[in-house]
């Protein structure tokens, strides 16, 4: 069996030496490379037919992809991709090669940064539920509903305005970006930014300046992590079924 880590450009480059993953996970990873036209598939042999998503395996996958990212463009493969052997790879790659090649060109020199803005605005949590047990006339009930609806709309509008100001400010430094506003009530904004490597320091400064630039004070907690391999910016492909894959529960 082989375990896939990433597709990269520059198949002629030597494989990187990998950092030790610490005392907990001292095992050695023997990476292999399969050139395919002008890209490369990076993988390792594995005796397992599935890869449990535990802490050791998750960090091993990430360490390999990050080591590759140091000197080449990577398209990180989603965790858990296992194939019978490398003999099938060229036939499987052929139909998706144009997409992979286009992604490698588009993502060249880029890194991903994640931003989450956790919302502490009291009014976002302060929309009372209607007390259905209270004795209310129909009119009173409808008025209460209307009041509740207006408050929720106001909270939503405030969230959208604040999220838009943050996202617009940061997007000017990004090649591409994705964002979700209020995916859950306490998360105002969840965003990913594709940044040119040489823009990383400027992006960090922009994040640091957000509380004053976007004037939200201590209403928000910003959680910014990265740089990550560009997981969020690879093109979704139509998967071919029957891959051995990790489907077991999380054991971190």
């Amino acid at each position, binding site marked *: 069996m082989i375990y896939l880590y990433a597709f990269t450009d520059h198949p002629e480059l030597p494989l990187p030496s990998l950092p030790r993953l610490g005392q907990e996970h001292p095992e050695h990873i023997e990476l292999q490379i399969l050139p395919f036209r002008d890209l490369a598939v990076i993988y390792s042999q594995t005796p397992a037919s599935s890869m449990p998503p535990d802490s050791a395996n998750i960090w091993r996958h990430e360490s390999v992809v990050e080591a590759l990212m140091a000197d080449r463009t990577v398209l990180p493969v989603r*965790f858990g991709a296992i194939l019978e052997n490398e003999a099938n790879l060229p036939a499987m790659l052929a139909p998706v090669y144009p997409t992979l090649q286009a992604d490698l060109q588009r993502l060249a020199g880029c890194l991903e940064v994640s931003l989450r803005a956790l919302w502490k605005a009291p009014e976002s949590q302060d929309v009372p539920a209607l007390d259905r047990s209270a004795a209310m006339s129909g009119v009173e009930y409808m008025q209460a509903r209307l009041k509740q609806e207006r408050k929720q709309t106001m909270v939503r509008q405030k969230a959208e305005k604040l999220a838009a100001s943050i996202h617009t400010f940061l997007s000017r430094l990004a090649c591409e970006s994705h964002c979700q506003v209020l995916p859950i009530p306490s998360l105002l904004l969840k965003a990913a930014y594709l940044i040119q490597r040489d823009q990383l320091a400027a992006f960090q400064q922009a994040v640091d300046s957000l509380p004053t630039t976007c004037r939200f004070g201590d209403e928000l907690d910003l959680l910014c992590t990265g740089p990550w391999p560009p997981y969020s910016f690879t093109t979704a492909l139509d998967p071919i079924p029957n891959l051995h894959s990790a489907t077991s529960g999380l054991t*971190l």
Partner: protein
Amino acid sequence: MSESVSKEREIVLIDLLDRILYKGVIIWGDITISVANVDLVYLGLKVLLTSIEKGDEMRRHATLAALADEALQDGKRTGKS
């Protein structure tokens, strides 16, 4: 380890899981990982927003659920119930 360092590790781990398990190139097959049908990221954010102890408790539950599932699958394979 201080609580702030521990929380930072949690945040990084959540972002890593959000990417490595749900994004990236997937060419073959359908890889799905979930904990009792709860989105891991939202589960993780709840961990962040509650105490570290609560987070540990949630992780233990996730681990136990996985072990129980594994035991159930083993039982099915060996004909046990």
